[in-house]
């Protein structure tokens, strides 16, 4: 089975600029349309992040929650989203993002095997801190799916050392103390936080939550290895349609390349 962590490492090694990691909600606006979303965003992506909607997300702001509710109301199940990932496996590496209970209900062995079979490279579980979930991590390792760890501005150096022991693929730095969908302030604190994470964990560091504009992306790209853009793309799809969202992703990618700077 393909080694997800290795494929993610290659993505970072191959890129000549900080990576763009667009986020989309699987099954939004519809399951069929989300295939088009995956392809359109994937065209600008170095890694594509696909969410699996959960009934009670703890880290999602109103925009992602609402998109997830649309998917849930339409009856989208985790296997649908895994199948979606499989459909776009010829594109950039896919990481799935979800909440623990959906993985546990899988159960983990089956969930990870299905994900790996669909070509999924990694998994982000927003409510699984580094000191929990040995069974889930073991199942992921067995299947070759990288378990990507989240760290927050509140994470102490002591805990970063613990995260370093289990982190795979890349580290996801949550830019703000909060849920998705706000606006990041790209300042010295954020740069210092990313530097602190880089000292503690020998993996590429990607920053997400609240990245809304190409300017945000460019500024973060100066000190991080990549950015995740989520709520803003979901909003764009909802308000202005897929072309507009793809346009925003393209502008973000250009900004990360340094075009127009």
């Amino acid at each position: 089975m393909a080694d997800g962590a290795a494929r993610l490492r290659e993505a970072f090694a191959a890129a000549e600029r900080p990576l763009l990691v667009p986020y989309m909600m699987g099954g939004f606006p519809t399951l069929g349309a989300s295939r088009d979303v995956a392809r359109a965003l994937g065209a600008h992506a170095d890694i594509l992040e696909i969410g699996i909607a959960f009934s009670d997300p703890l880290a999602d702001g109103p925009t992602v929650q609402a998109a997830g509710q649309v998917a849930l109301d339409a009856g989208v199940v985790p296997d649908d989203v895994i199948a979606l990932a499989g459909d776009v496996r010829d594109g950039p590496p896919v990481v799935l993002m979800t909440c623990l209970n959906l993985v546990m209900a899988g159960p983990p062995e089956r969930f990870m095997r299905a994900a790996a079979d669909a070509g999924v490279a990694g998994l982000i579980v927003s409510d699984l801190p580094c000191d929990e979930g040995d069974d889930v991590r073991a199942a992921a390792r067995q299947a070759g799916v990288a378990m990507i760890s989240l760290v927050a501005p509140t994470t102490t150096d002591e805990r970063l050392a613990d995260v370093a022991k289990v982190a795979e693929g890349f580290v996801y730095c949550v830019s703000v103390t909060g849920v998705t969908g706000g606006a990041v302030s790209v300042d010295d604190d954020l740069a210092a936080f990313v530097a602190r994470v880089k000292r503690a964990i020998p993996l590429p560091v990607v920053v997400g939550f609240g990245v809304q504009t190409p300017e945000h992306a460019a500024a973060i790209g100066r000190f991080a290895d990549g950015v995740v853009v989520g709520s803003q793309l979901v909003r764009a799809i909802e308000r202005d349609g897929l072309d507009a969202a793809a346009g925003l992703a393209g502008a973000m990618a250009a900004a990360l390349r340094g075009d127009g700077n």
Partner: protein
Amino acid sequence: MTTIAQRFGPYGGRYVPETVIPALDEFAAAYDAARDDPAFRAELAGLLRDYVGRPTPLYRAERLEAEYQAGPIYLKREDLCHTGAHKINNAIGQVLIARRMGKRRIIAETGAGQHGVATATAAALFGMECVVFMGRTDMRRQRLNVIRMNMLGAEVRPVDAGSGTLKQATSEAIRDWVTHVRDTHYVIGSAVGPAPYPEIVAELQSVIGIESRAQVMDAEGRLPGTVVACVGGGSNAIGMFRGFLGDGGVALVGVEAAGTGISSGLHGASLGEGSPGVLHGSLSYLLQTPEGQVAEAHSISAGLDYPGVGPEHSHLRDAGRVRYVSATDDEALEAFGALCRTQGIIPALESSHALAAVAREGRAWGTKGPILVCLSGRGDKDVDQAAEAMGIDG
């Protein structure tokens, strides 16, 4: 490392976003220190005595015994606590800890509104800002408590998602906490959530069981044969059971909401009908779909209308130490009416579920010794809803 229990058998844990993990560590450390601090213990004990009104009475309900042909039946009168339910035991303790941690803002979720009122009360007492998250449906059916919270200076934030009940209110409270974790303490209202909450809430509520054990011994010269409590998240039940877990001869019974009947699928019986899963930060029994989406619970009682349950109850269930049964909306309403008529006590609809189990099984239990019921709260908040269900005109 904290000495506070993180798990109960396999259940419990801390399944939350990394952002709040340091706050959980801080809370555990603060509670650890407070627990060993005589000044804290004296302050808490003083407030429980002079402000909450503890110890609450143990009352023998003789006319209810005649009605149910069972007995003796003792009621632990948590309904006589200040604010009208056991929830204040926990809220006062947690707000004291929050103050020690230097937090200025308090948030809480509430279902029946009793925990919201208790937290708003404690926040008023200590001059802290308080925001309570409450589902839209619950705001309607527990309107009196919404008014009380407002009077106490708390902001009640409606939660419109889903069924507008306790599950959504709790999710919203956790999301607020993730955002304001540096200056905010989240006062969880039941023995649920990530560690250290379930253990801390159980310890703060264990005063119910400790007092009850001594009071029954005083009255009867023996232990109760059966101890029964309703189970929503499970805080009044675990508080009561903690007094008796070491007494192998005492049968412990937890009563979940059977809603319109277990077979209808509309109920809140997580321990009876659910399976292990993760909701709101801990691993415990859960009502869920085969794919792991959390199901909606249903109960006439807002405080029992929750698809999860505290992790210690899951462990006690598996270990067979506590037997968990359920009572329907109709059975609870009948027991509600019976206590009103026979004893002049209007119980909370939550507590009425515990009484309903006595109505059904009390005669058999009576042969094993006294029956002790946790009367977790009073029913003032429920009169509109109960009157409507019972066809009583105002």
